[in-house]
């Protein structure tokens, strides 16, 4: 997925770009309204993350112009202002959602996903492995023996495995991606979710294998 970040604070922008890169997303950074307009004009983005207070104007102006131009790319506003005063006007101007700074990345990701799901605009929303299809729009797993609904964490776990079949993921890594950093979780919490996932994959061509002292990986059944 391709993101555009419009943010004038250089350190924050760099950190956000770094953070998105870890999860394998492509992200461009515009530090002013003028840059943002130029970027949007040249490339297609799946989602725009927009700061409100920018050196050459108000992000809300960009938002209303963006909507007037019938550009459908969803916009999530990163606001640092009081949530009380901004909320209504932001959504009225056509923002799809907003996140208050400082934001939790797990939450930002969840909101991006929710916005994209609402739009139905994710290019590739079905991933297949060993006869099992993961529908990221519907959050379902389908195989010959039927379709299963996934809860949020189960879905995110499946998504990690399906994105890189055969790759070993450590418990630590999975925990980082599954739980918010402000949450207090024990290491065996991950085992609970892996256990649930195994139950849902039961009877299909795919399975999650424990690699001793290293972690888990998704493999096809022999």
């Amino acid at each position, binding site marked *: 997925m391709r993101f555009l970040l419009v943010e004038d*604070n250089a*350190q*924050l922008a760099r*950190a*956000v770009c*770094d*953070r998105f890169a*870890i999860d394998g997303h492509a992200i461009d950074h515009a530090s002013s309204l003028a840059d943002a307009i130029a970027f949007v004009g040249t490339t297609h983005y799946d989602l725009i993350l927009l700061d409100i*207070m920018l050196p050459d104007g108000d992000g809300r102006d960009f938002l209303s112009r963006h909507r007037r131009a019938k550009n459908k790319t969803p916009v999530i506003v*990163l606001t*640092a*202002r*009081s*949530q*009380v*005063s*901004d*909320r*209504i006007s932001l959504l009225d101007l056509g923002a799809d*959602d907003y996140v*208050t*700074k*400082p*934001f*939790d*990345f*797990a*939450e930002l990701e*969840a*909101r991006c*996903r*929710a916005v994209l799901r609402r739009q139905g605009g994710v290019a590739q929303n079905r991933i297949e492995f060993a006869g099992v299809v993961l529908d990221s729009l519907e959050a379902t797993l389908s195989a010959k023996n039927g379709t299963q609904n996934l*809860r*949020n*964490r189960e879905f995110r776990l499946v998504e990690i495995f399906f994105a890189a079949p055969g790759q070993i993921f450590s418990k*630590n890594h999975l925990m*980082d991606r599954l739980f*918010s*950093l*402000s*949450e*207090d979780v024990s290491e065996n919490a991950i085992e609970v979710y892996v256990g649930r996932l195994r139950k849902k994959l039961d009877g299909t061509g795919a399975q999650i294998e424990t690699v001793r002292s290293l972690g888990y990986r998704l493999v096809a059944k022999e």
Partner: protein
Amino acid sequence: MKAIFGTPLITRGSMQRRLVIQLSLIAFLLSLLLFLIVRGVADRAASDTQDNILAASAISIADALYSEGGQVQLELPYSALSMLGTISEDRVFYRVNVDGTTLTGYDDLVVSARSDVSTQAEFSTFSYRGEPVRAVSVTRSVGSQSQRTLVQVVVAQTRLSLAQISYRITLWAVAIGVAFFLVATGLSLWAAHNALAPLNRVASAVTRRGPNDLRPVRAEAPAELAPLVSALNSFIVRLSASLARSEDFIAEAAHRVRTPLATVRTQAEVIHRSLQHSKNKSALREMIRAIDESSRSAGQLLDHAMVNFRADQFQAVDIDLRELVAETVERLSPTAELKDIAILVSDTGEDFAFSADPILLQNALRNVLDNAIKYSPPDSDILVKLFHDSNFHVISFHDQGRGFEGLNLENHFERFKRGTNVGDIVGSGLGLTIVNEVARAHGGHVKITSNKGEGACVSLFLPLA
């Protein structure tokens, strides 16, 4: 705001009353003066009339005097006394005095006579036989050139009729005075009311407007009120500027605090990912928690300031509580989903129209729901219910979390008070204070019920119509 408009106004009587009292006092003095003048003039006219008749009588007696052989003779003309008797029951006395001896009349009617002859009648008032009398004295010389005798004619009359006339005149004067006083007082009331009308117009133009109407006052005002109105308008301009400043200040403060926190938190997350050592990881996790805590506190402090600010200049709009709840739930679902928490909304299908400040109310709902998500375990449900209870719309949030413990439930509404069982969950203790203040601004209240092991239930009561 409250401080500005709530200062006790020191009133020192009504201007209208003062004006009316002053004008009435003047009217009273004028009436008194009028009374005195009318009575004085009329009295004078009455006594002049008596004097004229007395003089005419005395002169007609004097004219009847003649000398015969050196002797002064008098044939008293009847008409001379009858003209006096016509008026009333006044008694008439007379004396014709020739060189100290009484020719005719009452001997004891003594009036000092002038020694020279004069056509002028002399008047005097004195008591005679126990009654006040008015007397006239006319002196004539009677006789031939060689033998002249000075004759004094005195005619006196009691003042009974004069007193009666005077009494009648006094009554009239009183009536005129009272009538004048009443008319003048009525006019002064009218004048005071009229004179103060522009002031009342300005006052009602100011009081009629809502608390948020900060447009300048445009009421028609006379020149005398122009400085007051322009002072008021400049005060309004300064007030609205200061309100706008405080709103900007809150927004700016939020921006200043949150942007660096966002940078630190994001960098910490990036580093957290790259770390392998679990000890380092947990240290960084602690750090991120501290950031979350401070950002949450800052956020809620600013929210609290904004809530107070908005509650002070409350602006109600007609909303549908069902929609507002749905919107808030939708807004917070991604956060809930992260923990696999389902938010289940149900309502009784009744009418939930309500007049509210939607921004305030949404903030309250968000705070309650945010709290519920924060304190709920993963894989649990939060039940949101909309129903009516006697005279209230009720929005209740029931979670399966740890509930409220260790605090008197009322204390949760106090700033920075938190339960004893919050453990490691990030919070500032302002959330419920905000909720409570919002509820109160809408004329409602908040109720918390908590049973150990059954989670907590926070209910927002908002008055029906």
